[in-house]
């Protein structure tokens, strides 16, 4: 029987939201009062968000016993039975099997395993040896060549080859250049970058330093969402620690290379994920994109050559330097090499953060890693790429995660948001949700993006309330194409994608809303009717009391009835009824 080496508690935003700080505190005091001298580590996100709070008990032989959904009350049991008594608390243990075994963790290598606030912990895992070997043995061209051979491409969504991007910035003359880490993760439903920054901040800093060396920049900026306070705090700590250890600042590790990093907190604008808008924001202006060329590699921040890479892209870099470009390129298919991190959410059992080799199919991700659909309902579609992406229907679930293959479906790899939808998700509603987002986030510069998305949204609103016509649907698709063609930046060029993909794969559903006045998934409120089954109603009157518009009254007997004219489809009666007597109907009333 091996002994316990350490205990880890996941303390990233998702864990803390689920109460892991309280579990950590309880564990700390319980260990102390028991006089046990076992290291208790705070770690980042292990990815199994569906089981937070998570406690890992790590043995000397590297075996890990994972406890999930741990409450404060469970801490005593774990300490008494497992830590002191060496008996695993089976009822709290969660299986990690296929969730972890099918993943390949490069970017997330250390996430959930090391203390993100400890530089030593990162160095114990080989951290900063990549930077050291770059500084000692490689030229700028060597590093760029290495990225090119590895096949690494931009993980923010664009998929631009990283080696090429660096060489464009390297080629520019002049002493002042900038490297910017884009951590303005704005896709609603994606938290990959946040988890990396919270769980392994030094990896991103090391990646930035290597990039800076390659392009010849002395100064870097991390542009991070203000909504990520914990990520900002951990980055600040990491930068300070790296500085005091001589890994940042003047003449790093005794070389001639000097480099320093500063954090800029974004102020809430999705469009600032676009590189020229991001630069405008750092320069203190409204975050509006401008025409390219000149590209940022020629004239970027303060008019100087600037290279902008996303968090995940940079987090791959130290691994590539340590293990070699070939090792990285060994994963993946075609022109998509390495791995991709996804935030798996929606109607899925194992929601969380995962990293898979490029080329894995969507079906494998959803069923093998994600554990399948909630309540074992049928998979309907997977939304990838957030507001810029599209919906991939279940029949295309064998599509691999590959930049080119996914593009053919109308969706994109995107930054990594993967929202799983089942038969209770309405595709018109999903399209409307994303368009509502992009419409509000449009900076207003281009007419088609500013007004076109507004008109599109109105049309979708008409359709989802049952007032749409088939001509509206045609006009919607026509306008989508025009918005795509006539917008300056990625926001407008991709905003119609959710509409176009849902209209392409789920046209029947649009037609149902328009012709049958029905929402098959029973989501679009205006198309729903609440009815009470007289046989199931026990006349308890809970629904009557809860109805905000007094639409419910006594029927001709011991049951209630709903007046469809007064009902506002708020659904309260449906929620409060203890007998399941209330049904939701859609479509035109069938005459008996």
């Amino acid at each position, binding site marked *: 029987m091996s002994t316990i080496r350490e205990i880890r508690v996941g303390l990233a*935003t*998702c864990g803390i*939201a*689920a109460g892991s700080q309280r579990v950590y505190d309880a564990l700390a005091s319980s260990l102390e009062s028991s006089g046990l001298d076992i290291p208790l580590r705070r770690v980042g996100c292990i990815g199994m*968000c*569906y089981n*937070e709070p998570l406690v890992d008990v790590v043995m000397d032989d590297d075996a890990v016993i994972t406890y999930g959904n741990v409450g404060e009350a469970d801490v005593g049991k774990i300490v008494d039975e497992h830590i002191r008594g060496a008996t695993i608390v089976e009822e709290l243990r969660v299986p990690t099997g296929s969730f972890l075994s099918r993943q390949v963790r490069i970017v997330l290598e250390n996430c959930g395993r090391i203390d993100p606030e400890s530089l030593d912990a990162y160095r114990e895992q080989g951290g900063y040896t990549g930077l050291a070997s770059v500084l000692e043995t490689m030229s700028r061209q060597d590093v760029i060549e290495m990225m090119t051979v590895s096949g690494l491409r931009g993980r923010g969504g664009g998929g631009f080859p990283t080696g090429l991007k660096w060489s464009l910035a390297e080629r520019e003359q002049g002493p*002042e250049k900038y490297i910017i880490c884009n951590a303005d993760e*704005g*896709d*609603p*439903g*994606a*938290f990959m970058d*946040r988890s990396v920054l919270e769980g392994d901040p030094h990896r991103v800093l090391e990646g930035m330093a290597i990039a800076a060396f390659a392009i010849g920049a002395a*100064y870097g900026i991390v542009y991070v969402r*203000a*909504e*990520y306070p914990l990520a900002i705090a951990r980055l*600040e700590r990491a930068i300070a620690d790296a500085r005091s250890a001589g890994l940042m600042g003047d003449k790093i590790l005794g070389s001639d290379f000097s480099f*320093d990093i*500063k*954090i*800029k*907190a*974004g*102020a*809430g*604008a*999705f469009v600032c994920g676009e590189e020229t808008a991001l630069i405008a*924001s*750092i*320069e*203190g*202006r*409204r*975050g509006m994109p401008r025409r390219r060329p000149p590209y940022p590699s020629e004239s970027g921040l*303060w008019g100087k050559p600037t290279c902008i890479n996303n968090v995940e892209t940079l987090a791959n870099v130290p691994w590539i330097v340590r293990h070699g470009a070939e090792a990285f390129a060994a994963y993946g298919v075609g022109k998509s090499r390495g791995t991709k991190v996804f*935030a798996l*959410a*929606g*109607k899925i059992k194992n*929601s*969380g953060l995962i990293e898979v080799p490029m080329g894995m199919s969507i079906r494998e991700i959803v069923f093998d890693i994600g554990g399948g659909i909630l309540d074992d309902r049928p998979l309907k579609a997977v*939304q990838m790429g*957030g507001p810029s992406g599209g919906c991939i229907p279940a029949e295309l679930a064998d599509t691999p995660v590959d930049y080119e293959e996914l593009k053919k479906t109308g969706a994109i790899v995107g930054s990594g*948001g993967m*929202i799983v*939808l089942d038969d209770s*998700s309405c595709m018109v509603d*999903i399209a409307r*949700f*994303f368009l509502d*987002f992009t419409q509000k986030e449009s*900076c207003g510069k281009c007419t088609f993006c500013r007004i076109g998305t507004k008109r599109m949204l109105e049309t979708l609103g008409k359709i989802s309330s049952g007032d749409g016509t088939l001509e509206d649907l045609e006009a919607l698709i026509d306008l989508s194409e025009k918005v795509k063609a006539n917008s300056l930046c990625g926001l407008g060029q991709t905003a119609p994608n959710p509409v176009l993909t849902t209209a392409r794969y789920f046209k029947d559903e649009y037609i149902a809303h328009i012709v049958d006045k029905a929402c098959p998934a029973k989501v679009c409120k205006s198309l729903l009717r609440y009815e009470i089954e007289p046989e199931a109603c026990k006349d308890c009157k809970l629904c009557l009391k809860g109805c*905000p518009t007094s639409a419910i009254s006594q029927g001709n007997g011991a049951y209630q009835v709903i007046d469809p004219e007064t009902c506002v489809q*708020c*659904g*309260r009666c449906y*929620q409060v009824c203890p007998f399941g007597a209330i049904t939701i109907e859609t479509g035109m009333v069938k005459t008996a």
Partner: protein
Amino acid sequence: MNELSPSVGRVDADERKQSAGHLRGQIIPLLQKLQEKSGFISEEHVDEVAAATGASASTVYGVATFYSQFRLQAPGKHMVRVCEGTACHVLGAKDVLEALKMNLGIDVDETTSDGLFSLESVRCLGCCSLAPAIVIDDETYGRVSPNKISKILDTYREETA
């Protein structure tokens, strides 16, 4: 933003050097600092930032209104944020928001007349596996449903009463 000297209006030497004298780059960090201190951006704040950075007041106002982080009105005592990210949306965030609006009697971006609550809608709090989620001040409530709302809000009301 944390390396700025505490007194607003002065930009420290390090900052000056690093951004090559580009004072305008300080507009957003200064606004953030002021909002953190006062809870919102007032007209005086706009003038203050303009004076400190050499920009016109209208430029600063333009920046403050562009970014969703900046509030131009004083918020209520408790900030209620409803996540409207994708995961929350598909799991019923809209119903939660409606329940909040009905309970508080206000719309999004408004404050209750007693000054106790402000309601905001945010795009993804980043705890998608807890969807639908709301955050009140710094406390996150996961897997909320419309009928849990009044109980949650009442704990804050009782605290004040």
